[in-house]
C-alpha cells in the first residue's frame, strides 16, 4: 500500500456492483423526475403535461386521505413499538436465566415473512371464526368486524405490525442498555435513588441515541408500509381507511397505469423521508445525549 502506483484493476473489481447500482438506483432517480412531468401509461407515447400531475395531486382528496392514513399509522405504531420494545428490553436486561430463549421468541416474527403472518392475523381478526372475537365473547364483549370496520381496520393492522417488528427494536434497545456502565446504577443505589429515579436520570438520557436511532428507522419504515395493508385490506380498507401512500402509489402505477401521476406521489414520499432525515440531522441530533 506504500507505493504510489495506481491499481487500475480496481475498476474491474468495482464494475459489476457500481454498474448495477447506477442502472437500478441512480439513473432511475433522474429518469423518474423527468417522467413526473409526463402523462404515460407505458403503451402509448408519453405526453408532456408540465406540472399537471402535481397540480392534480394538490386537488386529490384520496391523496390527502392516504397522507393522513400514513401519518396515523406512523404516529400510533412508532411510539407504541418504541415503548413496548423498551419495556421488554429492560425486563431482559435483568440478570435472569433464559434470556436467550426469550430473545429467540421475541425475535421470531422479525424473520418470518410479513405475508405469511398477515394471513394468520387475518384469520385471528375474522368476524365469525376469528380468535379475537371468540376471546372477547368470553368476556361478553360483542363481536366487531375488525378489518371490515372503518374505525378498527387501521388499529388492527397497527397491532399486527408492532407485533411483527417488536423483536428488532428489543434487540437494538438491549444492546443500548448493555452499553450503559453498571457503576452508574451502583452509585445511584448507594445514594438511595429509587428505580424510577434511576430510569429518569440514568437510563432514559443515556439511552437517547438508541431511542433516537429506533425512532428515525421506525418512522422511515412506517412511511413505506405496504405489504400488510395489501394482504389484510386488499382494496385499501373499508371506506379507504387503510389506504396509505405507498398503497395509493401502487394502485395508480400498477393497477391504473398512470405512471406520471404515481411518480408525483413517489416524489412526495421521498420528500417525507428526506424530511425525517433532515429533522434528525438538524434538530434531534443536537438534543440527544451522546456519552
Amino acid at each position, binding site marked *: *500500500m506504500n507505493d504510489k502506483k495506481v491499481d487500475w484493476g480496481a475498476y474491474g473489481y468495482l464494475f459489476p456492483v457500481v454498474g448495477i447500482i447506477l442502472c437500478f438506483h441512480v439513473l432511475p432517480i433522474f429518469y423518474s423526475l423527468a417522467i413526473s412531468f409526463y402523462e404515460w401509461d407505458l403503451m402509448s407515447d408519453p405526453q408532456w403535461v408540465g406540472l399537471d400531475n402535481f397540480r392534480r395531486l394538490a386537488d386529490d382528496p384520496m391523496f390527502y386521505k392516504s397522507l393522513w392514513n400514513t401519518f396515523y399509522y406512523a404516529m400510533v405504531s412508532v411510539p407504541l413499538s418504541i415503548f413496548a420494545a423498551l419495556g421488554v428490553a429492560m425486563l431482559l436486561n435483568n440478570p435472569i436465566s433464559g434470556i436467550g430463549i426469550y430473545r429467540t421468541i421475541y425475535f421470531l416474527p422479525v424473520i418470518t415473512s*410479513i405475508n405469511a403472518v398477515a394471513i394468520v392475523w387475518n384469520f385471528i381478526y375474522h368476524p365469525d371464526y376469528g380468535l379475537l372475537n371468540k376471546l372477547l365473547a368470553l368476556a361478553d364483549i360483542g363481536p366487531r368486524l375488525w378489518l371490515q370496520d372503518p374505525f378498527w381496520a387501521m388499529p388492527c393492522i397497527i397491532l399486527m405490525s408492532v407485533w411483527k417488528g417488536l*423483536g428488532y427494536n428489543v434487540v437494538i434497545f438491549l444492546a443500548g442498555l448493555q452499553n450503559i456502565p453498571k457503576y452508574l446504577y451502583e452509585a445511584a443505589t448507594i445514594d438511595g435513588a429509587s428505580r424510577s429515579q434511576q430510569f429518569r436520570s440514568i437510563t432514559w438520557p443515556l439511552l437517547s441515541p438508541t431511542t433516537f436511532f429506533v425512532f428515525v428507522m421506525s418512522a422511515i419504515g412506517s412511511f413505506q408500509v405496504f405489504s400488510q395493508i395489501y394482504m389484510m385490506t386488499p382494496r385499501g380498507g373499508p371506506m379507504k381507511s387503510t389506504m396509505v401512500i405507498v398503497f395509493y402509489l401502487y394502485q395508480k402505477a400498477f393497477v391504473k397505469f398512470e405512471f406520471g401521476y404515481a411518480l408525483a406521489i413517489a416524489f412526495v414520499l421521498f420528500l417525507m423521508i428526506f424530511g425525517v432525515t433532515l429533522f434528525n440531522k438538524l434538530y434531534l441530533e443536537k438534543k440527544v445525549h451522546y456519552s
Partner: protein
Amino acid sequence: MKNSYHLVVHFLLIVGAVFMLFPFLWMITTSFKSEDEILKTGKEIVLLPDAWRPGFLNSAEDDERIRQTEIQRKAWEEQAALPPASRTKRLSKPFSTFDNFREVWDKQDFYRYFLNTLYVSITITITSLFLASLAAYAFSFFKFPFKDAIFMLLLGTMMLPQQALLIPDYILLSKLNWVNTYAALIVPWVASIFSVFFLRQFFLQLPKDLFEAATIDGCSRFQFYYKILLPLSKPPMVTLGIFTFLGSWNSFVWPLIVTNDKELRVIQVGLSYFNSESGTQWGPLMAASTLTILPLVILYFFAQKQFVESQATTGMKE
C-alpha cells in the same frame, strides 16, 4: 426480595412470549384442522386439531365424532376402490391430517413457487456475496482515483427509499423486455451496497502487512482475494449470506410488480394470490403460510446468533 422481583420479571416476559408465539401456534394448529373444525361460529375455541388430540382429552362427544369420521372414511375408501362406473354414491373424502398441505403443495402449485424462490434466493445470495466482496476488496486494499467519491456515491444511494424506485425500475425493465423473466427477479438485487460496506469494514481491520507480504511473495491481486481474503472472511460472509437470503426469500413487492407469469411466481406472491382467491379456505391458507416460513424458521433455530446479528447490525427493516 431479589427473588420475588425476578419472578415478576419472568412472569411479564412469559406473558409477552405467549403473545409473540401464539399466532405461530395458531397458524400451525389451524393448518392441521378440517374445515368443520375451523368454521365453527360461537364461543367454542378449538385449540388442538382432531388429528393431534391425545385420546384422554376427548369427551364422549369427541369420541363419537371421530368414530363417525372413521366410518365415513371407510365408506369413502370402499367407493374409491371401485371402478368409476360402478360407484353408487357420491361421497366426499373425509379430512386426513395432511390434506391442507397436499392441497397447497400440489393443487395450488406451491411446490413450483417454492422452487422458484429457492432458485432466486440462492442465486442472489451467492452472486451478491461474490460481487460485494470484490468491490470491498478494491475499496480496502487498492489505490485508485475517485475512490472516496465512488464510495460516497454508493453510500448515498442507500438513503433512497426502495418504494420510490419501484416505478422507474419497472419502466427500465419493461424497456429491456425483462418483465416476466428470472433476470428481473435477480439482477437488480445482486449488487448490495450494504454488503460492500459491511465487508469493507471487516477487510480494513485485517493487518495491512498481510497484503504486502503476499504481494512480495508473488501473489497476484486475484490470488490474494481468493486464497487469503475469502477464507478469512467466513464469519461476515455467513452473517451477510443469511441477511441476503432472508431478504430475498421474504421479498414481495418487487416480484409482485415484475412478474405475473405463474411459472415465475415466487412464494410470497403465490401466497398473496392464494390469499385473495381462496375466500375462507383457512386450513389451506394456514398450511401455505406455514410452508412459507418453515425454511427460515428451521434456519433460524440453527443460526440464531447470526440471524439476530444480521438484522440488528444492519439497521434495516422492511
